[in-house]
C-alpha cells in the first residue's frame, strides 16, 4: 500500500469505531424488531378482543334475523373517536352492520377466510391494521372485521417506536464519541513510555556508548523491541571500541617506524639522496597522519558543544601558515569581521580544517597569489585565493579522500576530505565557489551567543 507509517492510534480508533457502530446498529435493530413484534402482538390482541366483543353482541332475534346489541363493555369499539371501525359481513360480502364511524376500506378488500386473519392496509394517506374473523351465529356464517386507524392520534405505539429510535440514537451517539475519546486517552497513556524511550535516543548527542533503552514501564509488547535495540547498541559499542583501539594501535605501529627511518636517513652521506628520502618520508608521515585523523573523525564523535573563538583560531592558523606562504612567494591576510566571533565547535578540529584549507590554498593557488582568510560575524570561516580556480566538474570529487587533480603532486589528497568531515561533525558543510581568479571555501558555523 503506502510507505507512510501507520499510526497505532488511528488504526485502533478506526477499528474500534467500526466495531462500536456495528454493535450499535445490531442492538438498535434487534430492540426495534423486538418492540415491533411486541407492538404487533398487542395490536392483534386489541383487535381480537374487539372482534370477540362484537361476536358477543351478535344474536338472533326470533325472526331469524341477526341483531347487534350494544352494551357498555364494547362501547370503546363503537365510539367514533377511538379510531376503530367495524363491519360485519355475510358470506356473500353483504354488509350486515357497520360502525358509526364509517369504514373507508372497500368491502372487497376485507379477506373472508376460515381462520381469524390480521392484515394491514393503506387507503389514501391512512394506515389501517385490521382483523377479520369468521363467526357462526346460529346457522349463519358471518365475518367480523375490526379496523384500527393507525394514524389516529389515540394510537401511540408506532410513535413510541419512532421516538425510541430517535432518543436511543441521541443517547448512543455521544456515548460512542465518549468511548472513542477514552480510547485516545488509554492509547496515549500506553504509548507514553515508548515516546519517552524514543526521546531518550533522539536527544542523545554524539556517540554515547552507554546509552540503552531501559524504561521499566515500557509495555510488554514493546519490550522485545527495546531488548533487541539494546543488544544492537551493545554490538555497535563493542565494534566502535574495537575500531577506536585499532586506530590508536595503527597510529602507534605506523608512526614509530617512520620516525626511526626519518632519523636513520640522517646517516646517508649523499646529500641529494638524503633530501629525497627526507621528503619521501615526510610525505609518508603526512599521509599517515591524515589517514589517522580522518579515521579518528569518522569513528570518534566530536564534542562540538564548546564555545570557541573563530577569530582566534583564524589568527593562529594564518600565523602558522604565513612563513610557508611567504616563502612560496604568496601573500596571506586575515579579515576578521569582529574582534571575536564565538561559535559552537571543537577548536582543535576547526583549526585542523583551516590548516588543511590553507595548505591547499598555498599548494594550488599558483605563484604570487593572494590568500585571504575571513571570519564573518555570522560565524562563517572562509579561505579565498586568486589562483587558477577549480574546474566545475571537480567540485564534488575534490572532497573525496585521495582525490588529486595531479597524481604526482606532493599532497595526500586527504586534506579536503578532513575539512568536509570536520564540517559534517559540526552539522554544516563546506561551500565551494570557484572561477579563474577567485576560489572560496567557506564553512558556516553555528553562532554561540555570549551569555
Amino acid at each position, binding site marked *: 500500500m503506502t510507505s507512510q507509517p501507520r499510526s497505532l492510534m488511528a488504526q485502533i480508533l478506526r477499528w474500534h469505531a467500526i466495531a462500536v457502530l456495528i454493535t450499535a446498529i445490531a442492538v438498535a435493530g434487534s430492540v426495534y424488531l423486538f418492540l415491533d413484534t411486541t407492538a404487533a402482538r398487542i395490536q392483534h390482541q386489541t383487535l381480537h378482543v374487539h372482534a370477540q366483543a362484537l361476536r358477543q353482541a351478535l344474536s338472533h332475534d326470533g325472526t331469524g334475523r341477526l341483531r347487534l346489541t350494544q352494551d357498555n363493555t364494547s362501547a370503546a369499539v363503537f365510539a367514533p373517536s377511538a379510531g376503530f371501525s367495524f363491519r360485519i359481513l355475510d358470506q356473500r360480502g353483504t354488509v350486515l352492520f357497520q360502525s358509526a364511524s364509517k369504514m373507508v376500506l372497500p368491502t372487497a378488500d376485507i379477506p373472508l377466510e376460515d381462520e381469524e386473519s390480521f392484515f394491514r392496509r393503506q387507503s389514501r394517506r391512512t394506515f389501517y391494521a385490521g382483523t377479520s374473523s369468521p363467526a357462526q351465529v346460529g346457522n349463519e356464517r358471518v365475518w367480523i372485521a375490526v379496523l384500527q386507524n393507525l394514524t389516529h392520534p389515540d394510537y401511540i405505539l408506532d410513535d413510541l417506536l419512532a421516538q425510541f429510535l430517535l432518543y436511543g440514537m441521541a443517547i448512543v451517539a455521544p456515548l460512542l464519541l465518549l468511548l472513542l475519546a477514552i480510547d485516545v486517552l488509554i492509547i496515549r497513556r500506553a504509548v507514553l513510555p515508548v515516546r519517552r524511550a524514543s526521546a531518550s535516543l533522539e536527544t542523545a548527542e554524539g556517540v554515547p556508548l552507554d546509552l540503552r533503552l531501559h524504561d521499566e514501564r515500557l509495555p510488554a509488547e514493546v519490550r522485545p523491541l527495546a531488548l533487541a535495540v539494546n543488544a544492537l547498541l551493545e554490538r555497535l559499542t563493542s565494534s566502535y571500541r574495537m575500531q577506536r583501539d585499532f586506530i590508536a594501535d595503527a*597510529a602507534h605501529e605506523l608512526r614509530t617506524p617512520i*620516525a*626511526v627511518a626519518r632519523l636513520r636517513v*640522517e646517516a646517508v652521506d649523499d646529500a641529494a639522496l638524503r633530501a629525497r628520502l627526507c621528503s619521501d618520508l615526510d610525505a609518508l608521515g603526512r599521509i599517515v597522519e591524515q589517514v*589517522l585523523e580522518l579515521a579518528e573523525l569518522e569513528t570518534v564523535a566530536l564534542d562540538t558543544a564548546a564555545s570557541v573563538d573563530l577569530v582566534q583560531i583564524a589568527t593562529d592558523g*594564518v*600565523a602558522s601558515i604565513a*612563513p610557508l606562504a611567504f616563502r612560496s612567494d604568496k601573500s596571506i591576510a586575515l579579515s576578521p569581521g569582529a574582534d571575536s566571533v564565538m561559535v559552537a565547535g571543537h577548536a582543535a578540529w576547526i583549526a585542523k580544517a583551516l590548516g588543511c584549507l590553507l595548505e591547499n590554498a598555498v599548494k594550488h593557488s599558483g605563484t604570487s597569489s593572494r590568500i585571504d*582568510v575571513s571570519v564573518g560575524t555570522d560565524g562563517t570561516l572562509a579561505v579565498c585565493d586568486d589562483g587558477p580556480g577549480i574546474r566545475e566538474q571537480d567540485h564534488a570529487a575534490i572532497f573525496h579522500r585521495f582525490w588529486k587533480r595531479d597524481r604526482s603532486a606532493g599532497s595526500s589528497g586527504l586534506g579536503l576530505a578532513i575539512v568536509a568531515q570536520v564540517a559534517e561533525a559540526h552539522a554544516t558543510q563546506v561551500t565551494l565557489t570557484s572561477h579563474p581568479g577567485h576560489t572560496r571555501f567557506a564553512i558556516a558555523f553555528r553562532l554561540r551567543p555570549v551569555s
Partner: protein
Amino acid sequence: MRILIVEDHAELVTMLVRLLDTAGYASDCTTTAEDALIVLSYTRYAVVILDLGLPDADGLSVVRAMRERDDRTPVIALTARASVAHRVTGLEAGADDYLAKPFAPEELLARIQALLRRSGTIVDRTIDCGNVSFDPATREVAIGGVPTVLSARELEVLAALIRRSSRVVTKAHIEQLLFGLADDLGSNAVEVYIHRLRRRLTLAEADVEIVTVRGVGYMIMERAA
C-alpha cells in the same frame, strides 16, 4: 648537558642517542616509566624526551609525578597517538612541548634548543636573522656587522620580531610591548614603528624584510635570494 630519553622502542632510542650525540648532547635512556622516575630522582637532566606510549604506564603519569615532586625539568612529549585531543591533555599534564612521531630531526633539536633557552640553561650570544644580529644581553643591534643605533621602541619591536624570526608575531603582542614603554600611543603606533624599522633596515642594507600578515601581525624573514 645531559638529556634523558624515555622510550621503549629500541631502534628509535639508538637513533635518538646518535642524533643528540651529533648535536653535542650526552644522553641516558630508560624504557619504562618506573625506571624514568627513579633515574630522575637522583640525576638532574637539562631536558627529558618522553614517549607517551610506555609499556608500563602512560607517559603523562611520569610528567605528573615529576611536577608533583616539584621537578621542573623541561619535558618534550613524543607521541605516536597524535590525536588532536592528546596534544591538549599532554600540555595540561605539564609537558613543556609536544612532538608527534614522525618528526624531522632538526625540529626536535630546535625544540630542545628552545626549551634550554627558556629554562636559562643556555644563553645565546646573539640572535641572527640574515645579516641582522641582535644581542639580548647588551641589546645591541648590528646590520652586516655594523653596529646600528635604534630608538628604544624600534629596538623593542625588532627584538620581538627577531626572537621569532620566520614566524609571525601578532600585532597585539607588539602593541603590548610598546604600551609597556608609554601609554600615549596612537592607534596606528605599531604601523608607525614597523615603517620606521623597515626604513632603517633598508638604509642599512639589511637582507631581511618585515612582512605584513594583514589582520594578524608581522614577520621578519630573510629576503629571498
